[in-house]
């Protein structure tokens, strides 16, 4: 599956949908037994017949720990709001076997430095979202509120990306771009 482009939207939608379906199924089951449409259990039988088996605390502990940890994991996933970066790895095609890896952060810091060279770019967040051989890039540009947006996008496309292409030795780096305006500046009054 393709990498998530808007984390954790896909995860949230999937898990919310599953939770909703589980609740609806449980409700339909209980209601079906209650009105006698589902003759699994007699309608006048108690919901809990007989005592709990002796092993219930063990089962409950295991089940509850699994559910609780899943909830915690889901909760923590809410803090990851950008696509994850990837490592750049190329294997040598010479006589000696080997490979070169560049951690994602290295590439990302270099592109970020290139981008912030532009006067209108206050900051940038960069992720190399796919590694070799077909890299893709995700960029969030924080523009100054007064900056010319077009100029900043051209700076990315005509200066930073060619340098990245050259560094990685690839013909193209498809890029997804999110424009933001980060730090606010006091506006100068104009008539």
């Amino acid at each position, binding site marked *: 599956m393709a990498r998530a482009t808007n984390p954790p939207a896909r995860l949230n939608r999937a898990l919310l949908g599953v939770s909703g379906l589980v609740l609806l199924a449980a409700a339909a089951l209980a209601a079906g037994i209650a009105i006698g449409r589902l003759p699994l259990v007699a309608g006048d039988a*108690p919901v809990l017949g007989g005592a709990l088996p002796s092993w219930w605390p063990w089962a*409950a502990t295991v089940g509850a720990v699994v559910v609780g940890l899943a*909830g915690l994991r889901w909760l923590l996933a809410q803090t990851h709001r950008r696509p994850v970066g990837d490592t750049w790895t190329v294997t040598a095609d010479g006589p000696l076997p080997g490979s070169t890896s560049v951690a994602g952060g290295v590439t990302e810091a270099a592109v970020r430095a290139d981008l912030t060279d532009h006067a209108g770019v206050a900051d940038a967040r960069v992720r190399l979202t796919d590694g070799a051989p077909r890299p893709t890039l995700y960029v969030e540009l924080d523009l100054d509120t007064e900056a010319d*947006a077009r100029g900043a996008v051209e700076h*990315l496309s*005509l200066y930073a990306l060619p340098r990245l292409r050259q560094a990685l030795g690839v013909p193209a780096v498809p890029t997804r771009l999110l424009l933001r305006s980060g730090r606010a500046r006091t506006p100068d009054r*104009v008539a």
Partner: protein
Amino acid sequence: MTRRSRRTLPATLVALVLLAAGALVATSAVQVLLGRTPLLAVDAVTEALARTTWQAPAVLVAAGVAAALGLVLLVAALWPGRTHVLPLVADPALPEIVAGGWHRHDLAARLRRRALAVEGVEGATARVRRRRVRVTTRTHRAATGALREAVATAVRADLDTLGLARRPRLRVTVTSRRKER
């Protein structure tokens, strides 16, 4: 690049409920294993369930509540949600930008600054939706017509430079703080 709501709020709520329920049940079960009084009154719950038959109204009420909650969660999962990012137009001169967009809130902050920069504007708010930008400004001036034109011109000039795939309609409102006499 269009980007829609991540549904963080319903997801966080359900995750918190799962975490709390798991912690409560696990704690109670371990307390039973250790022979202590459990946090959750397990005996009371089992007794109540043993006394309730499937035909009892309480079962139907519980089923109804669960169904309603399940429906809400399903709608939260399936509803497309509000657009958070307005897409940029694809520029043939910049083929490597395969998708681009402006974040709605940041665009609103930028347009608000454009409105504030107009002489005579005392305060401004801007709201950006997928198809509509609404700028509301406040002024001390009594006559608002010329000011509204000036704000619209300033904001429109900036909107034109942003390269949005679909330029939202602009609506400017100017309210005067000076009392009409």
